[in-house]
């Protein structure tokens, strides 16, 4: 007897409504990816000027010189992550478009793998963000307790 899983998998086919939806998803996805590429380039550009801006704001105080480099590094990391996300989104959109136009199952598979990667990376970023927030909260509470004692 064939396993239940295979029977289930064979049931869902891309019908005409899903075909249209996926086509539109690919179109919007491509737009989002292109906007993402532009924004990540702008963030990278801002990273280059962050050091200079911090130096001007510091008024020559050496402690802020290091802060400028730190801000530049943070901006560059954000730009790199955003670029990677946009690249996965772009691959998802272009491969989906090709899959729908040529009925290529392999492109369809690769496209959805890229969609999975978009969600995985975003999920990990959210986890890191929540961890930073929790850490900031702990540090703030500890500092408040230390100050009051």
């Amino acid at each position, binding site marked *: 007897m064939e396993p239940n*899983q*295979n*029977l*289930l*998998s*064979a*049931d*869902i*086919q*891309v*019908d*005409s*409504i*899903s*075909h249209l*939806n*996926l086509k*539109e*998803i690919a179109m*919007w*996805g491509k*737009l*989002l990816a292109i*906007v993402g590429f*532009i*924004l990540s380039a702008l963030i990278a550009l801002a990273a280059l000027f962050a050091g200079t801006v911090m130096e001007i704001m510091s008024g020559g105080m050496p402690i802020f010189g290091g802060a400028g480099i730190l801000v530049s590094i943070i901006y560059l990391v954000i730009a790199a992550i955003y670029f990677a996300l946009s690249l996965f989104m772009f691959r998802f959109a272009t491969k989906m478009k090709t*899959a*729908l*136009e040529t*009925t290529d*199952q392999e492109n*369809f*598979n690769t496209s*959805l*793998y890229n*969609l*999975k990667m978009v*969600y*995985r990376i*975003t*999920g990990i970023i*959210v986890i890191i963000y*929540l961890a930073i927030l929790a850490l900031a909260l702990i540090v703030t509470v500890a500092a408040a307790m230390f100050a009051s004692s």
Partner: protein
Amino acid sequence: MDTPGNLLQNNLYIDEGIESHFKESGKWAKYIAITGMLFSGIALVASFTLGGRIEGALNSGFIMSGTAGFMVILAMLLFAVAYFILSHYMYRFANKLLVAVDTSDRYEFVESMRHLKNTYKVMAILFSIYFLLFIGGSIADFIW
């Protein structure tokens, strides 16, 4: 004779590989959506509490900006609402996708794809507005 459109549609299907991609995508999307809804709730509360303080600060003292404080509250409220709508669409997409994969329900699959389309549409519109505001602000900054 079958139309090329129908031939295309009949050939693409959800195999085991795609099923595993969908399962993972659904789980991550659900988690991201729940976090998004929580954050939009926090942003909504902040728009009334912090927004009120910012409004007070901007409308008193030497600045006297008039409507600037109100604009801050409005911007925070709009952000919270837009973020909630986006997260809600994503949650529906994730939920329906997981059900579709688990029960092999074609209708749920169609619905999940419709919600993904709406998620991307809202996201693209928001990004476009943000982009236009950014460019408009930069031009205004340059002129003044």
